[in-house]
């Protein structure tokens, strides 16, 4: 089971899960990131603010990474880059092609997103009443005998 948490901003609370990204091909260190649980996001996304941390810490030139499919959201379209990573969400770990929103085109104070490329492997429980943000492994979800 992966346990997340609610993080308050203003009067709003949002569900987050902490993740650690390793970049084997870049020979860079790891990056720890709070990811907003977003069932509407097709993919897991590294937001510009976290991408800037990565660039500053490791010297990785984000603009030199391979181009990805443009990201379309409510606010319009944004260029993306991709990088191969190993993502760890305690205690789960998997290789992933991570999409990075291009910091050069759009610096917005938005969080990085945990998308359905990872969420689809779990049963997601987000229950603000009990402060629960849980990602259940298949056998854990099956044991609940949900309809």
């Amino acid at each position, binding site marked *: 089971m992966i346990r997340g*948490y609610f*993080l*308050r*901003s*203003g*009067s*709003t609370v*949002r569900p*987050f899960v*902490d*993740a*650690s990204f390793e970049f084997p091909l870049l020979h860079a*260190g*790891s*990056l*720890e990131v*709070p990811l*907003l649980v*977003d069932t*509407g*996001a*097709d*993919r897991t*996304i590294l937001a510009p*603010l976290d991408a*800037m*941390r*990565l660039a*500053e*810490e*490791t010297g990785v030139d984000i603009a030199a990474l391979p181009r990805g499919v443009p*990201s*379309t*959201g*409510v606010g319009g379209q944004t260029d993306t880059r991709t990088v191969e990573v190993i993502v*760890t969400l*305690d*205690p789960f*770990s998997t290789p992933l092609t991570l*999409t990075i929103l291009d910091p050069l085109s759009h610096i917005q*104070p*938005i*969080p990085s*997103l945990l*998308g359905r490329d990872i969420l689809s492997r779990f049963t997601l429980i987000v229950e603000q009443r009990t402060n629960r943000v849980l990602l259940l492994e298949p056998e854990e979800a099956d044991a609940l005998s949900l309809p």
Partner: protein
Amino acid sequence: MQEKQAELRRFHQNVEYFQMHREELLRQYPEQWVAVFDQQIVGADPDYEHLLDELKEKRVPLGKVFIQRATDKDELLILSQ
């Protein structure tokens, strides 16, 4: 894997520190980006890029630091991609 799990726990302690001291941080650093590392405030600035520069000068590991805006303003996030 155990090392990675320990790193994530340390990172989460910084998130918890921010949450526990949120009201105090709102008063002290209103509308600023606040950086927490090893459960201590290691920097604050209204400009995110300036804050990263400051943290780099202090040799704070940017990959491990938790940075959050201290704000009581409501913002509507509608995200998808």
